[in-house]
């Protein structure tokens, strides 16, 4: 019997390997750091649109982004695919070669107007609708040389028009033909630069693209943003990122949250049309590096306990930087990657050292602000997040709240009791909650499960000696022992730097894994219970 099972397992592995090798040829291509409209953006936009279309057939095209790209795991993930999935890639040296190999899998091209930057955003929508590539005028000959014909021509259409007018035009023409579960905000950099790393995904999903302002002061664009967000299906996604020119992150997430939609950043999120299709290894289950033993009590001593959490998504921080594993560290997991890009998520779990502990985030099943989510929708939102946590073997959840960030700059990370009640109710088996981004001031503990806000924000530029002095001062301002000091590490600080800061602390301090920190805090919560009194 055992022999049979073994044979079946071997066959399954062989079959999956065979399946990979039977998919079409895979290609990689390297991108430089030039994303200027007047330079390399047109060609890169064309290639990313090509990626979105051809990966619709099968995962075929993967880009290696430059070292300064937000998501710094692109090349390590490529290595991971080759090492663990037996993938073989052929490198493409030029756009001409890419089109020679792959243009026949597209339906044509859409021309955007290099004089009107927003026309490229509209062109991405059109590319998804037509399953075509986007080209500037200069690239038309290249596209036609490879047998492609024009599907749309946006040249001259938008001259002198406002973004609001352009997006209304695009809405009238394309909205009904686009996917209402995946909206793409093609924001981020502005002016002469665009970094449309997520465009392949939007084209793959036939999404509507925009960067309409979510600042209420931009009356028309704000109305437009409300119109399209209100027409998204429940529980849908807003991929990409807000425009750094038009509005603020907090305005963007506040508005999307008000429709209970989930933000999945950033505009630079790369290769998702490829990553989406790479499954978990057969038999793989997400398994977190827990430190807490079931049934054991963790009694704190008269000490200052420090736990570190790196925020801002797994892929844009210190994961690939020096020092990981040298210090107990909690990592904010982008939970939807478990099904949006399963093998990519597995890559992080496979690499985790015993000191790398994953936690669920961020406020919901995606990036949301709970104070902005309609209160009648919040239980479902939290419950969906909890399902993702269970699949990922996570038992700590992190909440971030900046609904009024631009109005209250400095003190806006807190939550009222009625919202915290929902988290406790819908996430019954968590060890506890972390809250904030900047230091926050909401604290409670129920049945040994603490809700703790960050007491310190470790900015990447903070002088190391002063950071150590800050932590010592906090321990003096909070004189009871044990003192539980939750530390938010911005993603740009690598762990070696954090270790230098923590190593300089007196013996009274002890850095512990987050799950043990929460268990001890639940045993003896020395913080004072505090809620946001009013949401106004």
């Amino acid at each position, binding site marked *: 019997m055992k022999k049979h099972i073994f044979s079946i397992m071997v066959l399954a592995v062989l079959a999956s390997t065979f399946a990979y090798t039977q998919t079409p040829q895979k290609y990689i291509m390297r991108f430089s750091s030039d994303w200027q409209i007047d330079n390399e953006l047109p060609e890169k936009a064309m290639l990313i649109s090509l990626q979105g279309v051809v990966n619709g057939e099968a995962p075929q095209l993967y880009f290696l982004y430059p070292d300064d790209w937000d998501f710094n795991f692109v090349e390590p993930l490529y290595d991971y695919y080759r090492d663990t999935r037996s993938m073989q890639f052929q490198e493409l040296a030029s756009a001409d070669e890419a089109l020679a190999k792959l243009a026949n899998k597209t339906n044509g091209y859409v021309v955007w107007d290099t004089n009107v930057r927003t026309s490229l955003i509209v062109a991405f929508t059109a590319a998804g609708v037509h399953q075509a590539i986007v080209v500037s005028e200069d690239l038309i000959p290249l596209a036609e040389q490879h047998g492609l014909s024009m599907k749309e021509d946006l040249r001259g259409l938008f001259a002198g028009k406002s973004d609001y007018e352009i997006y209304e035009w695009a809405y009238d023409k394309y909205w009904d033909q686009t996917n209402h579960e995946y909206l793409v905000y093609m924001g981020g950099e502005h002016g002469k630069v665009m970094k449309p790393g997520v465009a392949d995904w939007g084209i793959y999903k036939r999404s509507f693209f925009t960067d309409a302002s979510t600042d209420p002061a931009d009356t028309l664009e704000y109305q437009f943003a409300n119109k399209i967000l209100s027409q998204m299906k429940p529980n849908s996604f807003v991929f990409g990122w807000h425009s750094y020119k038009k509005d603020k992150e907090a305005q963007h997430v506040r508005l999307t949250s008000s429709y209970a939609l989930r933000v999945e950043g950033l505009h630079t999120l790369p290769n998702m049309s490829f990553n989406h299709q790479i499954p978990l290894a057969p038999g793989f289950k997400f398994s977190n590096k827990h430190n807490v033993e079931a049934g054991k009590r963790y009694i704190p001593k008269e000490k200052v306990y420090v736990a570190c959490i790196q925020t801002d998504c797994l892929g844009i921080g210190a994961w690939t930087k020096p020092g990981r594993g040298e210090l107990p560290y909690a990592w904010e997991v982008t939970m939807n990657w478990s099904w949006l890009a399963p093998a990519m998520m597995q890559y992080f779990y496979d690499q985790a050292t015993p000191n790398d502990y994953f936690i669920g985030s961020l406020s919901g099943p995606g990036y949301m602000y709970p104070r902005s989510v309609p209160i009648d929708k919040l239980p479902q939102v939290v419950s969906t997040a909890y399902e993702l946590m269970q699949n990922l073997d996570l038992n700590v959840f992190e909440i971030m709240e900046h609904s009024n960030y631009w109005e209250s700059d400095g003190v806006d990370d807190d939550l009222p009791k009625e919202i915290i009640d929902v988290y406790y109710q819908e996430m019954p088996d968590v060890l506890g909650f972390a809250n904030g981004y900047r230091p926050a001031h909401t604290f409670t503990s129920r049945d040994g499960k603490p809700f703790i806000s960050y*007491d310190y*924000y470790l900015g990447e530029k903070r002088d190391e000696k002063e950071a150590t002095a800050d932590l010592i*001062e906090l321990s003096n301002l*909070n004189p009871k022992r044990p003192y539980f000091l939750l530390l938010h590490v911005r993603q740009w600080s690598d762990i070696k730097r954090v270790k230098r800061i923590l190593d300089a602390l007196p013996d009274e301090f002890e850095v512990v894994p987050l799950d043990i920190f929460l268990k001890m805090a639940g045993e003896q919560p020395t913080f*004072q219970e505090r809620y946001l009194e009013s949401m106004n």
Partner: protein
Amino acid sequence: MKMHILKLLVLLFMMAAFAACTFGERNVFGTWELQPDESTDLATWRYRTLTLDISQQGKQTVLIQKWRRGNEPFFTDSLAFVPDGDAIRIPITRQHWPDNWYMGVLAVPGSERTVTGEWQSEGQAFTVSSTQPVQTSQGEFNLKTTLDVSMDKKLDVLRISVQRETRPTPIELVFKRVSR
């Protein structure tokens, strides 16, 4: 010979008078701008800048910290003292505790900051001490802070050493004069 000595004495007197007038103007009063590169890292939150107005208003010496974000005023914090006089009580109206934006510390609206101070060198250097309750994760804490303010006359530079009894090291701030 006597005439020469007399001329020399007159000249010396004029130089001394000129220097006295000049130094007389060079006092701490005026507007100063923080020089972050020469100061202890203040952990300002995103693009904030700090200017300091020091003035004499009646018997009170008044320090007003003005935090700006770009060109927008963001937060104003004031201290005042009467040398050798009673402590001045300043109402706290906002939760912001601007001394360090990265620490989980809030001011307590509705409370008061108690301020005393004295000149160490009239017009040139003074010490100001304050106490105020702050909110931390474990509750309220009565925080005492001392500022030693002195002027470097040659360079028209103001130096402030901030000592909080809870902090192991002082915070050294350097300001340059913007206006008198």
